[in-house]
């Protein structure tokens, strides 16, 4: 593509992208620190991924291959719309395959297939401040981050144990990045927290409404907070995926009928379909004859 064709590439104007890139660079330089940025109006409502879209638009180039997932799935409304948006405004190649993608924009999941060096994972973040529900004042939470006063985060975990007997926080589970900043990993299930630790991929977080960008550079230490006598643990599922038979993946419950029937399937659709294509099957897999109908 000529230089002129990439000018004002991917929806945002060059000045805006420059501003966002500066915020991203700062965020990478200070892992886990929330960098304020001048979030723009995007052609979608707040809460639908305006932050993630701006980050993606700022880092995407004509040679990139984009994958968009929502709750792990490539075929949900939000994922389809954002993918179509970048196809239209940037004319980039898109994919549903985790391994082929160079940029993956995600809401609520990290793909099951391990990410590799050179890939960028862009998270859509609704509320970037992990201390927000405990301390409503922004002036105070900023001071707490600056002075590394994170006792309050453990008050929340204490409350969980006092009430439920175990840490009941299952998503947006707070992590400490590189031994310094406490960060909200966006509403991903805590199942995905260990995948952030020393990941070879660059992880960028964009919160459009709250006007914050933060980042976890490749190979950065990400530790989930816990108590010595109540260590962090991820969710486990008693049965394998009903379609591909995978164990140790994050499963969604899908209601099958109105008589209480349900099945558990991988929330990562690409991972599940890839396994099925390779001949793995679960107890509810369609046999080839039924699939042809």
């Amino acid at each position, binding site marked *: 593509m000529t230089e002129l064709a990439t000018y004002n590439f991917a929806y945002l104007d060059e000045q805006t992208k420059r501003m966002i890139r500066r915020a991203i660079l700062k965020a990478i330089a200070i892992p886990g620190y929330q960098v304020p940025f001048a979030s723009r109006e995007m052609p979608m409502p707040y809460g639908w991924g305006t932050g993630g879209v701006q980050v993606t638009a700022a880092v995407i180039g004509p040679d990139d291959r984009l994958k968009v997932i929502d709750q792990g799935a490539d075929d949900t409304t939000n994922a389809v719309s954002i993918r179509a948006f970048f196809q239209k405004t940037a004319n980039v190649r898109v994919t549903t395959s985790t391994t082929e993608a160079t940029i993956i924009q995600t809401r609520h999941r990290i793909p099951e297939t391990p990410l590799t060096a050179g890939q960028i994972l862009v998270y859509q973040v609704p509320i970037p401040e992990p201390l927000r529900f405990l301390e409503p004042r922004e002036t105070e939470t900023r001071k707490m981050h600056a*002075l590394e006063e994170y006792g309050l985060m453990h008050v929340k975990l204490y409350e969980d144990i006092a009430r439920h007997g175990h840490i009941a926080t299952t998503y947006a589970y707070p992590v400490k990045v590189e031994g310094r900043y406490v960060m909200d990993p966006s509403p991903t299930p805590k199942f995905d927290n260990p995948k952030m630790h020393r990941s070879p991929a660059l992880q960028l977080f964009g919160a459009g409404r709250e006007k914050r960008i933060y980042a976890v550079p490749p190979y950065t230490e990400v530790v989930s907070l816990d108590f010595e006598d109540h260590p962090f643990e991820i969710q486990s599922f008693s049965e394998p995926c009903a379609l591909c038979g995978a164990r140790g993946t994050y499963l969604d419950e899908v209601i099958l009928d109105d008589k209480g029937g349900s099945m558990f399937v991988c929330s990562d659709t690409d991972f599940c379909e890839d396994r099925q294509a390779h001949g793995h099957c679960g107890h509810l897999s369609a046999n080839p004859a039924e699939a042809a109908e």
Partner: protein
Amino acid sequence: MSDTPLLKVNAVSKFYGSRIGCQNVSFELWPGEVLAIVGESGSGKTTLLNCLATRLAPSAGSVEYRMREGQFRDLYRLSEAERRLLMRTDWGFVHQNPADGLRMTVSAGANVGERLMAVGDRHYGRIRSTATDWLGRVEIAADRIDDEPRAFSGGMRQRLQIARNLVTNPRLIFMDEPTGGLDVSVQARLLDLLRGLVSDLGLAAIVVTHDLAVARLLSHRMMVMKDGHIVETGLTDRVLDDPQAPYTQLLVSSILQV
């Protein structure tokens, strides 16, 4: 009592524009000593207390505090991080309204445990047993540990606030009208409890109150303030039984006799 003071206050003044908050206040506080600051409303008691507790920067003067390591530090030259660490470890601040000093939406146990977690305790069982112990010491039943302070009566809230402040074994407690708004029988029990804790733990305390009876019960020494100035200072019994300054005489004679 040791022979070096814990707190040295040197000519502290606070002005609100041209209005005087408090002016030229100097005194020293020794470890284990309870000092009452009394006076009518608007006399500058709370301004002075906030200046001492670094919640308010004074316009002039200095306050020096003897740190746990033994050296004196000027409180207004501490870094923000040091100041906040001091406030949540070596100091306590008991507000008149417990809602200002408590987290009303987290359980009593977490309220007491917060300071422990803030200084790095990461063992749930230990935090909880310390919290249970402190609730017992302030006469809150152990089965209320998971209740929110919203479900507590005024007196219980105030006792919880005291437990929350004392859990890190502070050496100095600031109290702003600790019994304000409580009825007399609850007040009496709270004062009893405070007296016991102060003498058991060897706490130093600065208590601001307009209630001379509270000052008499709790404090060893008292300062009487009027219009931002200290008009009289001395041992509590001496000041109350033989007031010298005309204003103190007026104050003492204004006590309602039942």
